[in-house]
């Protein structure tokens, strides 16, 4: 009788914007924690967030003592003429014992592969590698071991992809949903001058304005009115692609409703599609959020590993506008 080896359990990859969130994630059952340095080298370069070198060293020690890994996101695109901060970020991640770096830029991936061949390299969602050819390129050129898939693929496409690439795949399962192909969106800089690619910030808070007009709350990014909320209507952060706009005389959420990705009930399907790791979005969110979401997914992932049905507890309150979507994983989203 032959037995097929049990598939490796899904790895739960969890966000940390602060050391407190890192501890919360690890304590709640994260297999890996991803984080960034406190500068423009990562795509959540938000005020008051992220890690200095000492905090990273402490965070790695805390995680490693408890069997968790730390992945350092260096996933913006180095500035021409000034690659220093990005190179130092890779060097320091390697020196401090990070388990992997998450990279988006070709030049930086090349630098990491040449300078730190033993440092494990993941490809960030910001690289927008959405097909087998692209992923094989990053694998053969820079030894990428894992790709974080863009949030544009259906489950069927992910399954097909996994059969044709030599690397692990990681997908987003919960949290803020980018509607556009990540790393290929300049909407934020069109309005604010600052972009995820260059500056590590989409719709940066420095350009956000809330204005009460009578009972109406108006949200603006730069000079652009992104939304108006009637009294009592839940408000949203003015991310451009989640705004309400007018086409052909009709106001609507043309790009996306203020909603969050949640595919906890699809985990068995995703496991069958050959996905290796599940990523929770939200380095900008609080440690209470991180603890709650990670705990819920820990339970779900363990249930999948035992072949039991997945139950969901307490996730909806944490989603944007209390609404959730399976996003691109379901073809109808397109």
């Amino acid at each position: 009788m032959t037995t097929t080896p049990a598939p490796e359990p899904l790895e739960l990859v969890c966000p940390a914007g602060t050391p407190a969130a890192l501890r919360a994630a690890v304590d709640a059952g994260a297999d890996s924690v991803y984080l960034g340095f406190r500068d423009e080298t990562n795509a959540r370069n938000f005020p008051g967030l992220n890690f200095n070198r000492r905090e990273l060293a402490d965070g790695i020690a805390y995680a490693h003592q408890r069997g968790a890994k730390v992945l350092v996101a260096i996933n913006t695109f180095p500035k021409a003429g000034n690659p220093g901060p990005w190179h130092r970020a890779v060097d320091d991640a390697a020196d401090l014992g990070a388990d992997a770096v998450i990279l988006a830029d070709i030049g930086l991936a090349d630098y990491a592969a040449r300078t730190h061949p033993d440092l494990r390299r993941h490809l960030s969602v910001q690289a927008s590698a959405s097909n087998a050819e692209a992923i094989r390129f990053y694998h053969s050129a820079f030894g990428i071991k894992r790709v974080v898939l863009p949030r544009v693929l259906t489950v069927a496409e992910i399954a097909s992809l996994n059969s044709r690439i030599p690397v692990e795949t990681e997908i987003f399962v919960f949290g803020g949903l980018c509607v556009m192909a990540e790393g290929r969106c300049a909407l934020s800089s069109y309005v604010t001058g600052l972009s995820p690619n260059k500056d590590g910030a989409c719709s940066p808070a420095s350009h956000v304005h809330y204005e009460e007009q009578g009972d109406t709350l108006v949200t603006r990014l730069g000079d652009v009115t992104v939304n108006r909320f009637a009294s009592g209507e839940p408000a949203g952060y003015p991310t451009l692609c989640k705004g309400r706009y007018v086409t052909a005389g009709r106001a609507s959420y043309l790009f996306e409703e203020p909603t969050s990705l949640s595919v906890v009930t699809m985990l068995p399907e995703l496991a069958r599609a050959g996905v290796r790791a599940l990523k929770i979005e939200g380095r900008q969110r609080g440690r209470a959020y991180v603890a709650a979401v990670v705990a819920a997914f820990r339970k779900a992932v363990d249930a999948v590993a035992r072949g039991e049905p997945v139950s969901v507890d307490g996730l909806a309150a944490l989603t944007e506008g209390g609404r959730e979507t399976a996003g691109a994983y379901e073809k109808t989203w397109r």
Partner: protein
Amino acid sequence: MGKRDTARSSGPAPQLSPVLFAGFALRPLPLALLQPILGVAVRAIHQRHPDIFERLADLDGPVYLVDPVDLPFRFELVPDPDRPSLRALAEDEDVMPTATIRGSLLTLIDLLEGRIDGDALFFSRDLVIEGDTEAVVALRNAVDGAEVDVAADVLARLGPLATPAGLALAGARALFSRAAADLETLRSAVIAPALRRTESHEAAIRGLEEKLASARPTRRARTGGP
């Protein structure tokens, strides 16, 4: 939320009500006396959580106006990395804050102790933010990273075993004892509804999730064909 030690407050929690606050207001605590308490509080937090202030160091000297709408005071917070200050404002005193944060005391304490996360801050309308949004986001992130427990932090500083020199500044130990007692009263008043709210919240969520879970397969089945 699990870490909170609720055993400390025994007996039925007082209702967080206008009456409670009237009580605080009636026991005359003029600004002149309130101010030293605030000074101790901010020094306690500064001492125990210097990283909050370090995380705000990139900002250009922000001044926050914190306005608990159900208290008769407004506060001015200047999170200077070396000399932070928290000051109660006189009713007619005008300040030019970088940003204003307005909400019920309950919401503000949730924010301070990390129970409201950065995005949820904007999803609910319980909190009103005016002025420099970046400064508010930075403060929220910095505070969230610090695991502040207001009562524990301040009591640690006020407690009999940890009576710091700072107390001498106030000159009235009795006043601090009273303030500490007030803080505990206030705290249990704040926490009880928070716990109740959490419980009912979770029940509502479970209901919603069950509905969603049962709705989802049908939706996929209908659209999953070739």
